[in-house]
């Protein structure tokens, strides 16, 4: 996507700028460069403490050193573009989206289980491929949408293009009909798209 490429270039430019000196004009890019590093470091360290479960100084210092190295190497992998102000709110909205998705998964799972155990299953199912065009634009929103479709039983994403063309395999008419509909609306709200 063009917009993201430009952003990547811009952040690269600011990084080389931040290495040169610490004049007042360059305080802003420097802060933007260190912010992802510390965020990555904190996430890494929380995961380390979680997984190790040991709190003695030896293991903690091992964790500190390795987390520092890893987040130095991969800070721009986890946060490829500059962190914008809306990122935190976006995470909050994403967390709010998960329970709704879980409810949809349970409802659709019950439907598919009903189909599986039905004696005349072959008459009930009617597999089809649905094509539609999504309004979503950003990569992350499209990936979330595709994975959400695949997670709800009865529908599998077969193909997604960068422009938002979807091909979805649905097990019967009832599973495929609600798409894109409510799920797309929820996701476009989550990622702040119109």
């Amino acid at each position, binding site marked *: 996507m063009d917009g993201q490429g430009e952003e990547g270039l811009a952040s690269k430019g600011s990084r080389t700028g931040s290495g040169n000196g610490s004049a007042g004009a360059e305080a802003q890019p420097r802060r933007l460069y260190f912010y992802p590093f510390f965020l990555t470091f904190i996430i890494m360290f929380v995961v380390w403490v979680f997984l190790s*479960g040991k709190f003695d100084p030896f293991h903690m210092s091992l964790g500190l050193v390795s987390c520092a190295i890893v987040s130095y190497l991969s800070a721009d992998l986890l946060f490829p573009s500059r962190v914008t102000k809306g990122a935190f709110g976006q995470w909050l909205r994403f967390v709010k989206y998960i329970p709704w998705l879980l409810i949809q998964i349970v409802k659709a*799972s019950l439907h598919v*289980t009903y189909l599986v155990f039905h004696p005349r299953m072959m008459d009930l199912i*009617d*597999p089809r491929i649905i094509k539609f065009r999504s309004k979503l634009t950003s990569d992350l929103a499209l990936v979330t949408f*595709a994975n959400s479709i*695949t997670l709800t039983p009865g529908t*599998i*994403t077969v193909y997604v293009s960068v422009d938002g063309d979807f091909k979805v*395999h649905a097990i019967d008419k009832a599973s495929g009909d609600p798409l894109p509909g409510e799920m797309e609306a929820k996701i476009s709200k989550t990622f702040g798209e119109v």
Partner: protein
Amino acid sequence: MDVVVVLFLFAGLFFFTGGAIGILRFPDFYSRLHPAGKLDTLGLLLSMIALALFNLHHFSLGTVLTSAKIIIIVVFVFLASPTATHAIVDAGVRAGLGPWTKGEQRR
């Protein structure tokens, strides 16, 4: 508490069973992936919640960490399972396998 754990476990096993029978009963490659990829995910979610609750029986920092790790497994499967399903479907499409439609012979 034990009642809740047993209920969750049985609900999980119910969906696992549905997934296994669905793989056998559905007519073709694509429709078999529906129970294979997704009912298993829900079954895993329910049974892992049951295990995490059961593990909290003796409440201490160690058991909380173990339960948190169990939940992390669920999160990982929720990310990995649709991706893997999508990869399998994509392989089928690339190999030129058409989806089964109503009225055809079982494959």
